């Protein structure tokens, strides 16, 4: 057991077990407080103090111990985390949130993506955006929506809005599609923002599989997606930079370089993020990979209707 006595006379019962590679020096002020995460913002950047249940992420500081609920600010400097007069050493090296070590295999991505598209409608919560995946699945086969909110005007209007936004994104104006999705739907970081983070991840994977630099497209989507929700903005910027929470990273690595069973298992891990956040992210990712198949898939295999990534 490590020594937890950091300052004379004060015993801390928390240790930092992981710090993300996007945690930068600076001062941060408490933004929001939840059961497993305290979010601090500073200069548009995010630092989240999280429990081991949430785990490593690019902006996460994972604490082995109770979260300091009284803390109103924190400082990151000199390899330490200053918190209400206490200093916690940050472990080194930090959690690496990028996909740099992966050698993507196009054929594997094709197979894994196909399986994911087939399975996701059954795996994801009904309240999520998963209905956008071909609008198939057993509930639609039955002729109606299922789950809470059935037959209600708000749910119907939200579905229509999302469908139209996707129509624009993949078949009309990219800018109009992103703007419609931005901030749309349920959730603290609304479903549309999670979906767009998935779109950005897809652009990252497309770039890796096709060998073409997709950073300009990622920058453009992110620019259009930024709004007035600082949490969403922070997540969008991290996605633009190809930085991922460990569950999303594990899924993307498995999709690109592992078997279909592993990819599905990892997708299951992503689905556990938030109420529907993980499912919305996976929907945005999967739909983008499918619709923009013309940009990464081998020629002759592109299904009818697939397109390439628009430049604007």
């Amino acid at each position: 057991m490590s020594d937890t006595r950091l300052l004379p006379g004060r015993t801390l019962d928390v240790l930092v077990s992981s710090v993300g590679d996007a945690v930068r020096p600076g001062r941060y002020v408490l933004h929001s407080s939840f059961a497993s995460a305290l979010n601090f913002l500073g200069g548009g950047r995010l630092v989240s103090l999280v429990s081991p249940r949430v785990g490593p992420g690019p902006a996460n500081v994972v604490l082995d111990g109770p979260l300091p609920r009284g803390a109103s600010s924190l400082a990151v400097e000199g390899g330490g985390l200053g918190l209400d007069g206490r200093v916690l050493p940050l472990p080194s090296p930090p959690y690496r949130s990028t996909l740099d070590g992966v050698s993507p295999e196009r054929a594997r991505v094709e197979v894994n993506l196909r399986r994911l598209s087939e399975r996701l409608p059954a795996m994801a919560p009904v309240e999520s955006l998963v209905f956008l995946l071909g609008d198939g699945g057993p509930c639609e086969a039955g002729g109606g929506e299922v789950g809470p909110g059935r037959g209600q005007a708000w749910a119907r209007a939200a579905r229509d809005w999302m469908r139209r936004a996707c129509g624009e994104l993949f078949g009309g104006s990219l800018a109009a599609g992103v703007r419609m999705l931005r901030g749309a739907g349920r959730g603290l970081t609304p479903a549309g923002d999670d979906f767009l983070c998935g779109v950005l991840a897809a652009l990252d994977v497309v770039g890796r599989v096709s060998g073409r630099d997709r950073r300009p497209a990622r920058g453009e989507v992110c620019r259009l997606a930024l709004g007035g929700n600082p949490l969403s903005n922070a997540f969008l910027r991290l996605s633009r930079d190809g930085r991922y929470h460990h569950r999303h990273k594990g899924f993307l690595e498995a999709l690109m370089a592992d078997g279909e069973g592993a990819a599905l298992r990892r997708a299951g891990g992503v689905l556990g993020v938030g109420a529907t956040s993980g499912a919305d992210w996976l929907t945005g990712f999967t739909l983008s990979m499918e619709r923009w198949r013309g940009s990464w898939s081998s020629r002759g295999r592109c299904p009818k209707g697939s397109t390439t990534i628009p430049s604007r």
Partner: protein
Amino acid sequence: MVIKGTLSKGKYYDSVTLMAVARKLSACEGVLDAAAVMGTDSNKAILKASGLLSGRFAASSDADLLIAVKASTEALASTAMARAEELLKAGKKKDAGGKGVRPRSLEAALESLPGANMAVISVAGKYAADEAMACLRRGLHVMIFSDNVPLEREVELKRFGAARGLMVMGPDCGTAIINGAPLAFANVVRRGDIGVVSAAGTGLQEVACAVSNAGAGISQALGTGGRDVKKDVGGIMFLQGLKALLQDSRTKVVLLVSKPPHPDVVAKIGRALRGAGKPVVAVFMGAEPELVASLGAFPAVTLEEAALLAAGLSLGEKPGAVLGGLLRRQDELAKTAERLAAGFAKGQRYCRGLFCGGTFCAEAQVVFRRYASRARSNAPVAPFLDLRDSWKSVGHSFVDLGADEFTQGRPHPMIDYSVRNRRILQEAADPEVAVLQLDVVLGHGSNPTPASDLAPAIRDGVALAKKAGRHLAVVATVTGTDLDPQNKAGVEAALRKAGVLLQPSNASASVLAGEIVRRLGR
């Protein structure tokens, strides 16, 4: 029609809370629609399209929370808005971690509760063994709820505990009842003189409930975790628990529950039972009854049979009478199946079991063997019956929804029904499916509102099949007691109303499912 809305500037609630608030508001009397969303332009456009846009929302920004309600009267809208406030406050309280003493270390916990002799450990698996060892060193018995503890650490902990006379329940021990206190996923049962040792979590819940519902009671119910009876651990805690119950003056009957233990462990149990001086009932699911009988215990094939035998012994009844009652019920189930079988469409022939409890999934497979030789599962009782893709059923399939592939990053299906509800619709859409078998587990830790969370999905599934010209039989059991917090009678009534063929036990539900498909296969 009245629309009411509130705008909360810069207030943050997690997504789970916001969705729960919207769902609960929609269920309020007189409420036609409700939404709890962030005040972005997109959401305001959606609210406008759905007729929920309030004039108050004009000044909102992306970081503000909007709550909108459409109700039939002004009064009902106001009531719903007040309810929204309550729900959001409750959500904040939960986020803040609640009230009461919250010690931040083991030392502080022991100081706050002097005399404590047991610790329940529920932390990430990689930390659980260290915490358990710290507790054992302080002389505490431990119950390790966590899973993903390395096998070698489990052996180390159990040897350490056994040498000091301390119980190590788990890892992956989901339930226990100690001195009448239900721990983790556990039911509220009568106290009595039947002691249980179980290496199967929902198995323990099923027998404890059946004992209680039969009028007998539980002295202690000890869980060991499923790996305890395998070769590597060697039954260390199963045997320690058995010996403790044999010595316990308040325990008159001992009940053992497990999947088939390793032969070495079986031999050790046999030695421990020599000269036991108390009746012992054992159900080793899937093992030959002769094996159990050779140990000197009363053999049972199903969890219910084991529980009723133990209850009978406790209450002074003859085992033959208990078994006779079960046989008569099987005859009745066969008649019920005969009657139902006429209503299915051509091509309907398969049973699909969707289980929250792993033990129930195993028991259903064991029972179902009498009716069909090839029932597949993601947790098969025989390796050649492996369901290759857990997300897609093939033929007769029994799916343990508590398996890792379904629970990674999600609440257990005993708490969160969303995965199963989705799967119910998937199975109902399959033209070859005739029977769905489900389990519902009540008690502390389980879903607090099982009827309202499950019944709509069942109704939708049955309607989906009906629309396609088919009949879908839904067979289920509710594991629980009238003392459980969920109101067992109310849950059963709601499920019956949804068209469920309710059975008194998982084994009985499996028999009915098997009797139906046997007739469809003719």
